[in-house]
C-alpha cells in the first residue's frame, strides 16, 4: 500500500480541524439559539398579553369618561362604576396596575407623558413642572409601562403674569 504523502496528511488534518471547528461552532450556535429562543418565547408571551391588554385600555378610558359625564345621575354612576370596577379587577388579576398620580406630583417621563403645558400664575408657581391634571390614566405591568399617564404639566415663567 502506498504511504500517504505528508502534504496530503497535513491537508486532511487542516480539513479535519476546520470541520471540527465548524461542527463545534454549529453546535454551540444551536445551544445558544435554543437558550435565546426560550427567553424570546417568554418575552413574546409577555408582549402578546401586553398587546391584548392595550387593546382594552380605550374601553376602560371610555368608562372613566362616562363616570365623569354622569355625575348628576347617581344610578347611572353606580352602574358604570360597577362595570369599571369589574374591568379593573380583571386587569389586576393579569398584573396590571394603574399608575398612581395626582395633581402636584413631579412630572416624571418614565411614567407620564406630557400632552400639554399649562401656564401658571404667581400663586400657582409651586406647580411648575408638576402634574396639574390627569387626562388619561396610565397602566403598568410588573415589567413595563403599558401606557404612560397622559397629563397636563404646569409651567411658570415670569411672563405668565
Amino acid at each position, binding site marked *: 500500500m502506498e504511504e500517504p504523502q505528508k502534504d496530503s496528511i497535513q491537508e486532511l488534518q487542516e480539513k479535519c480541524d*476546520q470541520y471540527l471547528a465548524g461542527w463545534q461552532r454549529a453546535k454551540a450556535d444551536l445551544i445558544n*439559539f435554543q437558550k435565546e429562543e426560550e427567553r424570546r418565547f417568554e*418575552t413574546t408571551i409577555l408582549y402578546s398579553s401586553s398587546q391584548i391588554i392595550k387593546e382594552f385600555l380605550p374601553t376602560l378610558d371610555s368608562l372613566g369618561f362616562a363616570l365623569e359625564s354622569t355625575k348628576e345621575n347617581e344610578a347611572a354612576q353606580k352602574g358604570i362604576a360597577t362595570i369599571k370596577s369589574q374591568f379593573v379587577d380583571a386587569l389586576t388579576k393579569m398584573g396590571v396596575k394603574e399608575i398612581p398620580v395626582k395633581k402636584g406630583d413631579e412630572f416624571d*417621563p418614565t411614567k407620564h407623558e406630557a400632552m400639554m403645558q399649562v401656564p401658571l400664575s404667581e400663586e400657582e408657581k409651586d406647580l411648575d413642572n408638576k402634574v396639574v391634571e390627569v387626562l388619561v390614566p396610565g397602566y403598568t405591568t410588573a*415589567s*413595563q*409601562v403599558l401606557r404612560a399617564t397622559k397629563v397636563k404639566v404646569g409651567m411658570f415663567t415670569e411672563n405668565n403674569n
Partner: protein
Amino acid sequence: MSKIIGIDLGTTNSAIAVMETAGPRILENSEGNRTTPSMVALSKGGEKVVGLLAKRQAVTNPKNTIFSVKRLIGRKFSDATVQSDIKWLPFDVREASNGGVEIKMGEEWLKSEQISAMILTKLKADAEAKLGEKVEEAVIIVPAYFDDSQRQATKNAGEIAGLKVRRIINEPTAAALAYGLNKNKDEQIVVYDFGGGTFDVSVLEVAGVEGEEGNIESQVLVKATGGDTHLGGDDFDKAIIEYLVAEYKKQDGIDISSDDLALQRLKEAAERAKHELSTSLETEINLPYITSDASGPRHFLIKMTRAKLEELVREKIDHSLEITNQVIKDAGFTVSDIDEIILVGGQTRMPAIQEAIKKHFGKEPHLGINPDEVVATGAAVQGGIFQGDVKDVLLLDVTPLSVGIETLGGVFTRLIEKNTTIPASKTETFSTAADNQTSVEIHVLQGEREMASDNKTLAKFILDGIPPAPRNVPKVEVTFDIDANGILNVSAKDQTSGKTQSVRIEASTSLSKEEIEKLKQDAAANREEDKKKKEAVEVKNAAENLIYVSKKALADGGEKVPEEIKSAVTEKISSLESAKNGSDLEAIKKASEELSKEIQKIGESMKPGDANPPEGGAPKETPAQSTDATSESEEKKSDSGSE
C-alpha cells in the same frame, strides 16, 4: 469576536438589528420596543434622557428636546436646508467655528455629532443588554443623498458612542441587502421609502465590478435619488383627523378641533383606523363621551371605509409616484427598465400604495420584511458579512419537497416538511386500522399534495410480525432520517415485537429545479381541492372510528346497558354507517354528532361504583391521523393476514 450590529439611525425613529444563525433579527430596546425615537433631551431636573423618555417630556421642554438632528448632521450652518429647518425647529441652533452646526442643550452648545452619539450610545447599551455581550462594532445607515461630510459626521457620532464603524451604507442599498438583491447583476431596483415624516425614492443598479483579486463582484450603485422631506404617513393621519372633525361637526354641530382632550383621542383613533384599514375594508371609530353640551354627554360613532381613506390621500400617493418617475428618469431609465421594487417605511403597508406601485410598474413589489425594519435588517446583513456569518464554510442544504407516508384513507402525512435544513430526523408513532392487523405497509412519498396518490412514490415496504391486537393498540414507530447528502433512510419498528424494517432512498433530494417547481405549482393550483379531499377522508375516518368505539362500548356493556339506550345507539350507528357510505360530509358530521351524544348515555346509565363499566363507553376524541394512521391497503392486507 463581538457581534457587529446594524443601526438604522432615522430622522424620527431608529432601530438596531444583528445577524444571527437563523438570520437577521431586530433587537428590542430597554422599553421593549423595536424602534427608538431619535430624540435627546436635557430634562428640567438636569438629566439627559434619550428615546421614548425624551419624547414623553418634549411638550414641557421644547427648548432642550433635540429631534430631527439627522436633518442637521454634517451640514454647514449656511446650507439652505439648515436655514429653512431652523425656522421651525424649537431649539436653538448656531454656526460653529468651523462653519458647521451647533445645538444648544441646557447651557451647553453641542455639535450635531454629539447629539447623534447620545442616541447611538443608548442603542448600543440596549443591544448589549439584549445580546448579553459587549458590542464594539457597527454598520450605520445613512440616506443615499448624504455627502461625504454628512457621512463622516455620522461616522464620528458612532466613534463618540464607542463604536467602531465598520461601514456607512446607503438606506436603499441596505434595503436591497435585506432582500438579498445585491447579487443579481445588471438589475435595476427602485427603493420606495414612505416613512412617517419623509418620502425618499432611489434607483439602484447592481453592476459587476472587478474585485481585489481580479474577479468580478456584484456592487450596488445608487444611480439617482429624490423625495420630499415633508411628505409622510403623518400627513395621512392629519387628513383623517380633518375628515373626522368635519364629519362630527356635520353629525352633532359641535366643533371639537379646539378641545385638546377630544382632539388627542381623535388623533389616536385616526392612527388606529389607518392601521386597521390596511387589513380590513371598513373600521369603526367609536369615541364615547367625546364631549358634552347642554343636552348632556355626546358620543362619536362613525364607520370609515378603506375607499374613503384612499380618497383622502390619493393626491399624496399620486405625488409620490410623480417623484418616483422623475428619479427613474434622472437615473437614465424608464419604468419598464426596473426589475425590482422594494417597499420601505410603515406607510407602505397601505394596500392603496402597494396597488399603485404594482399598477405603475406592472410587477409585484417586495414586501416580506416589516417595512419599518428593512433598513436595519440590511445593516445587520452587512454586519453579518463582515463577521463571516453569512459566508459560512459549512453550507447546509434544505429538502426541496416534503417527505412522508401514506396513512388511512390515502392521505399523505408529512414527516419532514419542505425547506427543512438537513441533516434532519423525525420519528412519529402510528398504529393499525383494523383489529388483529399483523402487518403494515409503509408507502414513502414525496410532494406537496394532500393525497398520497398525487405525490411521488419513493419506496414501499412491509413491516410484518405485529402481534394480533385491537386496532389502534400496536405502536409502530416510523423514523425518517435525511443525511447531509440528501440520502433518506426510513425505518419502521413495532414496539411490542421489536421487529424492524427499513429502506434507504438515495435520490430523495435530487429532483431538478424544474421538477421541484412543477410539483410546487401543482400543489398550489390544487390546494383548495386537495384540502376538501383531505377533510372528506378525515371526517370519514373519524366516523369509522366512532362507529368502532360505539360498537365496542355496546359489546363491553352487554346486559348492563338499558335496552332503550342500546336500540337508540344501534339506530344512530346504522344512520352514521349509511351516511358514511355517501359523500355528503355535513350529513356524516351531523350523524357523528348525534351518535356521539347518544353513546354518552351508556356511561351515564351505568350506576356509580359499577364494577365493570363498559370500556370506551364515552367516545374519545378522534385520534390524530398520525396516531391511528394506516393506509387502506394496510387494512386490506390485515384482513387477508388475519384470515
